[in-house]
């Protein structure tokens, strides 16, 4: 996967120029007025450079040559000409400054908005999308692709405009100065264009090969580095060195080829420029001697300067075009992500604070009461309130992540408020899928799953999820303090509430032993805590959210049994009074469930409480006793 991503990064041509450019322009729309200034300033800046050179002609012809050898020459005309020139140049310098400065504003601003849109869309995309794309792939939208866009907006485009203007300007000036010499320049120009295209296309192809090869080498390095300990255990060092030398050698070949073309572009173009210069000098000299083409000293001098200024922008254009193509391909990938269909939420039943009316009926309350209710507006305009209890029912649910590949078949189950339901079975039996459906990470057809009797597809997703807390096997914590991580469960929780939740989860004592207690900063996914401690924080986080339904998905499977015993106390307290779904492969943790569902190949093959299942002497019995069969 890594390899694929890297290869995609370079050399891919954008599919739809127009559309992508339009999108970029729409991001720039906010800076419309500044952009107008930018374009004007670029024109002035490039124009000043072109115009300035022209002044050499009058300087030589009108103010120097006529006065050569004279005592007390009249320099007043010369001075005023130079002042005019200075003014033009000053305008050029100022324009350069202004447009560069404005482009900083624009490019950083556009980039921030693109990043924000990207991130926001990522947040809104369904879990399904995240499952299908690697983190590396999504991250490269934020890094490689946006970087390329920034380059393009802040440098390539201004550069391109400026170069184009310079070329046109220089060309016009040359025509004015000497059409004859210009003709020669045109021939040179064609040669140059040809050289640029030749070298450019070669180097482009070789660079793509280099990128591919680099991807292979990087992929190998990644894989071997990650598996380095295994390499050592199997004494595979020499073999991996051999293979590395092979692909590293290939990379060298590709890289030296690619860089050769990139490196010779500048000297060749530069020297073609000098060739231009030399030819102009020689031919111009001949013309001047013979008085042909109206060429005088000033004209020749001015022309010579132009002929040298001609190469730079041509090289620039070819380089910037490459950058722009690459950036557009990146931008296209970025917009493609932004255009992905976000998670749809057509729910209209929402969770509200409630209180009991005089007659015991439930009514909406504006204050936080601790009592929650589902507010269910009906098509006839009436609204009903149902108390939030945590009753969950599956009615004949069949589901597959992909079409034609069912993961769950005809699942029916119910969990009454306060019950503990265990899901048992081997990997891939569909246990986690069930929990993914409850909180609508994935959707099932209408009416199949009901929460407190309400079709969950009618419930607003945020409200549905708020009523279910999850503790997963992978303990994801965020960079921040311990307190902040616990508060993640309920953002407006006070410090006291968080500490109380930590106490409930049996996490309080270890937190107090951390160097800064609750203010200890957790880094890189909580790496400075043990697995067990991280899981305790996860439990505390769920506790502070205080939902009626709790899902524990293999919450203790990566923890040793002694630590588990410690966590279990916290979990037991957390589970009290809630509807709980427990997924575990350690059967001892599910014994006391109200109902145990044994799953196999997406079906519930046995159900009942522990005693009933043991008495059944079926799969559960086998699994359970298998643990002790050797004694």
């Amino acid at each position: 996967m890594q390899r694929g991503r890297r290869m995609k990064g370079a050399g891919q041509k954008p599919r739809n120029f127009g559309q992508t450019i339009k999108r970029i322009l729409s991001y720039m729309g906010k800076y419309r007025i500044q952009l107008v200034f930018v374009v004007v300033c670029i024109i002035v800046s490039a124009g000043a450079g072109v115009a300035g050179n022209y002044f050499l002609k009058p300087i030589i012809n009108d103010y120097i040559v006529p006065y050569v050898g004279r005592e007390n020459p009249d320099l007043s005309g010369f001075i005023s000409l130079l002042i005019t020139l200075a003014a033009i140049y000053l305008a050029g310098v100022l324009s350069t400054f202004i447009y560069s400065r404005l482009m900083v504003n624009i490019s950083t601003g556009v980039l921030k908005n693109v990043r924000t849109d990207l991130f926001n869309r990522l947040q809104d995309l369904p879990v399904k999308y995240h499952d299908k794309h690697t983190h590396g792939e999504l991250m490269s939208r934020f890094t490689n692709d946006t970087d390329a866009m920034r380059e393009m907006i802040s440098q390539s485009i201004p550069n391109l405009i400026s170069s184009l203007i310079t070329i046109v300007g220089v060309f016009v000036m040359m025509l004015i100065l000497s059409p004859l010499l210009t003709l020669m320049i045109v021939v040179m120009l064609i040669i140059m264009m040809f050289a640029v295209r030749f070298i450019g296309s070669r180097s482009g192809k070789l660079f793509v090969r280099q990128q591919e090869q680099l991807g292979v080498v990087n992929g190998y390095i990644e894989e071997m580095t990650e598996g380095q300990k295994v390499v050592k255990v199997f004494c595979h060092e020499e073999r991996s060195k051999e293979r590395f030398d092979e692909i590293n050698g290939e990379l060298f070949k590709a890289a030296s080829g690619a860089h050769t073309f990139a490196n010779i572009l500048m000297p060749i173009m530069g020297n073609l420029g000098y060739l231009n210069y030399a030819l102009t000098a020689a031919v111009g000299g001949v013309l001047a001697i013979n008085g042909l083409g109206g060429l005088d000293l000033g004209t020749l001098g001015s022309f010579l300067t132009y002929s040298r200024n001609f190469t730079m922008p041509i090289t620039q254009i070819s380089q910037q075009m490459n950058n722009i193509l690459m950036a557009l391909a990146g931008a296209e990938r970025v917009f493609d992500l932004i255009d992905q269909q976000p998670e749809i939420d057509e729910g209209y039943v929402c969770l509200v604070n409630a209180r009991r009316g005089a007659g015991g009926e439930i009514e909406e309350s504006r204050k936080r009461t601790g009592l929650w209710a589902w507010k269910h507006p009906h098509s006839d305009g009436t609204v009903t309130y149902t108390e939030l209890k945590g009753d969950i029912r599956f009615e004949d649910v069949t589901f597959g992540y992909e079409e034609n590949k069912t993961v769950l078949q005809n699942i029916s189950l119910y969990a009454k408020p306060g019950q503990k339901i265990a899901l048992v079975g081997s990997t891939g039996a569909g246990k986690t899928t069930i929990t993914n459906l409850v909180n609508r990470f994935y959707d099932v057809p209408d009416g199949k799953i009901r929460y407190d009797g309400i079709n969950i597809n009618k419930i607003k997703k945020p409200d549905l999820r708020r009523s279910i807390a999850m503790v997963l096997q992978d303990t994801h914590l965020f960079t921040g303090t311990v307190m902040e991580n616990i508060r993640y469960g309920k953002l407006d929780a006070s410090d006291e509430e968080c500490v109380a939740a930590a106490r409930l989860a049996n996490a309080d004592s270890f937190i107090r032993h951390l160097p800064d207690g609750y203010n200890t900063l957790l880094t890189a996914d909580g790496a400075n805590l043990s697995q067990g401690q991280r899981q305790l924080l996860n439990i505390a986080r769920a506790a502070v959210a205080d939902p009626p339904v709790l899902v524990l998905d293999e919450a203790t499977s990566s923890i040793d049994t002694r630590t588990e015993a410690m966590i279990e106390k916290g979990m037991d307290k957390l589970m009290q009074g809630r509807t709980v779904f427990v997924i575990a492969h350690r059967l001892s943790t599910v014994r006391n469930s109200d109902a145990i569902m044994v799953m196999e190949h997406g079906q519930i093959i046995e159900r009942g409480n522990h005693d009933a299942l043991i008495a059944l002497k079926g799969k559960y019995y086998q699994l359970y006793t298998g643990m002790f069969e050797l004694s």
Partner: protein
Amino acid sequence: MIKKLASCVGEYKKYAVGAPVSVTFEVILEILLPLLMARIIDVGIANSDMSYVLKIGGLMVVMVLFSMLFGALSGRFAAVAGAGFAKNLRRKLFYKLQDFSFANIDKFSTASMITRMTTDVNFVQMAFMMIIRLLVRAPIMLVSATFMTFTINSRLALIFLVAVPFLAIGLGLMASKAFPRFMSMLKKYDGLNAFIQENLIAIRVVKSFVRGDYEKQRFEASAADLQRAQKRAEKLLVLANPLMQFSMYACMIAVSWFGGRLIIGGHLEAGEFFSFIGYIGQILTSLMMISMSFVMITMSRASAARIVEVIDEIPDISDENADRGLKVADGSVVFDNVGFSYSKDKGNLTLSDISLKIDSGETVGIIGGTGVGKSSLVQLIPRLYDATVGRVLVAGHDVREYDTDELRNNVAMVLQKNVLFSGTIMENLKWGNENADDEQIVAACKAACAHDFIESFPDGYQTDLGQGGVNLSGGQKQRLCIARALLKNPKIIILDDSTSAVDTHTDSQIRSAFKESFGNTTAIIIAQRIASVMDADKIVVMNDGRIDAVGTHEQLLASNDIYREVYESQQKGAM
């Protein structure tokens, strides 16, 4: 640091020398051009000497062609030297990594190691190419062009004595001010990316706690922060262009004014005047290039330092003093009063006072909570780490006496965090024994209870695993890893919690199949489940870096509190 890196140029030295040499020729030819042009104007045109114009013109063309040749050569040389340098650098790092012991590997995180071998090497390669070309070209150009202007007219050339320091100081000030701002911007950028990554990994948590909007707000704030930092840094950097233009234009005006007056006074020829104008560009752009290269080189310094850090790391396990002829005779293991610390600090031991004797062919279980030192203990046997105190003996010899390959080929270990590599199942299995035939492979897979599930795949043993074995479940991966280790046909096999993701039934199947086919192999099994070790010849209970007790299941159940506690927690209320 530079010396160490330079040694990596190796066989590409002639290219690395060729590049600056060709560049020097290229520059000298380039520098002479404006001078010759001046001759055309001042001698040829002034005297209406056609043949002189053509002669000099022809000379110029020839010189340009040579200059082009040298330029292209230098480009080629620099490309080969740069790519070769990078190749050698990567190889040196990779080889070094192969020679690292576990302790060395632990020191560098995987991610940082990868960055060093990829991004950092690229940076250094770019800097290297820049040094052997641009950084040679620009100063020579600067000096010789300035020199030329002085030979033409020393009074007029004084302009450059003002302009060059002005631009140099300006660019220098700008760069030195911008650099820290850039660094702080990059840090913010990394921070933002880390934030995104964290979010992607934990997307289910974010969604199940309905924290999308909260995360968006936090992102928006960091993104705005980054934007500010970016503005602050780039604001300074964009000064370079106008500053350059300003210097260039000021020179033009100054040369026009002073030069014009010199021509009028008869002290300067018109052609020389034009060549002066030509040199302005050469001098100032080379200055600009120098400053640019300095920025690039400074930026790559950090990369170079990171690379050298790896090169300088001394592999702390070496078998230089090993007895090459010594073979591992049997599967007995003795820990002789062993103490161990990851930091080699005798005052802060992870393991202490470990004395344990394991006979050849025995099955030994190790039980204990996380972090009590179980993995540390067994890693000393194949000498993945060296004991800090005491000795570890295999077949009666200190492990340090063996050639490490000999030792590790006889002590197979299935690591807790095990890894499969991209390729087919067969290719992965062959890591254990390259020459294993199908029969041996099937036998090992059957012993590890992997044969059946492998056969259930459409491609069987030829199934492609993808990077890191992503197409397998955790339990399947573990079983493959066990089979891979069994294929070594080792005298000792160590399973470090290697069946944690395998269900209890399969777990017991593996153990009985293993007993059957590999009965003579010493087996050391670390496990969480008592069931995995209860039938072992002896069980070692570890606590807090020490051996708490050794005995059989029955003995320990009767006498050891920790063991009993774990046992009871695992069958709470059962039966």
